[in-house]
């Protein structure tokens, strides 16, 4: 079965300050271990809470690939299958993305650049502001991403 994906981007002009939506990812320790294994990142701090505490963190925390993946999920949810992700970041990592709390990724349009033609297609480059919040109220990650959308 092919999973369905849909763009939630409204069919209206893209303008600064528009929301690009949000998504919530439940991050249990079990799920963190699954994601860390898929990323081939077996660092103890992403798997064992005590190991993370020895390094100064409050508990097991997600790696950078997890952060990239959450932002990508948001961008693709908004822009649909035709989106081209040009950059994820720069992202400031201000705190740990901890297992045991939901991960809520959201964003808004920061800048819309003029339509660009690459010979076959026309693209609109959009800069978006993104952030990752956890259900305990912390905002461990914030920054920018850049995408091309069919014009």
């Amino acid at each position, binding site marked *: 079965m*092919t*999973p*369905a*994906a849909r763009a939630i981007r409204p069919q209206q002009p893209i303008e600064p300050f528009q929301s690009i939506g949000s998504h919530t*990812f439940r991050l249990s320790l079990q799920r963190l271990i*699954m*994601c860390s*294994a*898929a*990323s*081939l*990142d*077996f*660092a*103890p701090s992403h798997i064992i809470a005590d*190991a993370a*505490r*020895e*390094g*100064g*963190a*409050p508990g097991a925390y997600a790696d*950078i*690939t*997890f*952060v*990239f*993946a*959450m*932002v*990508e*999920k948001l961008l*693709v949810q908004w822009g*649909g*299958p*035709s989106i*081209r*992700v*040009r*950059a*994820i*970041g*720069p*992202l*400031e*990592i201000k705190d740990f993305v901890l297992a045991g709390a939901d991960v809520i990724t959201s964003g808004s349009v920061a800048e819309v650049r003029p339509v660009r033609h690459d010979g076959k*297609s026309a693209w609109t480059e959009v800069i978006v502001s993104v952030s990752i919040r956890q259900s305990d109220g912390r905002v461990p990650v914030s*920054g920018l991403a850049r995408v091309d959308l*069919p014009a």
Partner: protein
Amino acid sequence: MGAEGSPHGKPLASQVGAESISDAGIRRFAEAYEMDCPVYWDDGAARSAGLPGRVAPWSMAMTAAMPQYWKPGDPPLADGFVPPFAWDCVDVPGTQMMSTRVELVFERPLQAGDLLRSDYRVTRITPKRTSVGDGYFIDFEVSLTDQRGQLVATERSSVYRYDPYPGPAADR
């Protein structure tokens, strides 16, 4: 630190991913993160979206670039092993490391068959005491090239390498 201060200089370290990106690897990654966009799952859907075929999630780039943890002839992995990225190519002290700033810039989507090479350059080292310990911020630029030598992505990141303060974090 010397010549590594230039991002355009000779890389401090180079690595090659453990294996080419495969359909199985894409599935495992997309499954774990519940990425349901059909361009990761189906060639036809990807072509309908203007892509040459099924692509890997963009965020899978560093996973695809990761070298082997172990190969025949190596000693056994020690307890507490970490991913074999070349973040330790800079000789600064510290027993722990965390990312503080990251950026991935893409030249094209990754696909099955791509084998990534990573070239590490250091652009800045800054000593700093923080809430978790005493250490150094190290700014890296990592160029990811494919099996044809073409640039597919660039990662720019800052990592904090540090010695944690003694005692539980809650005491500080």
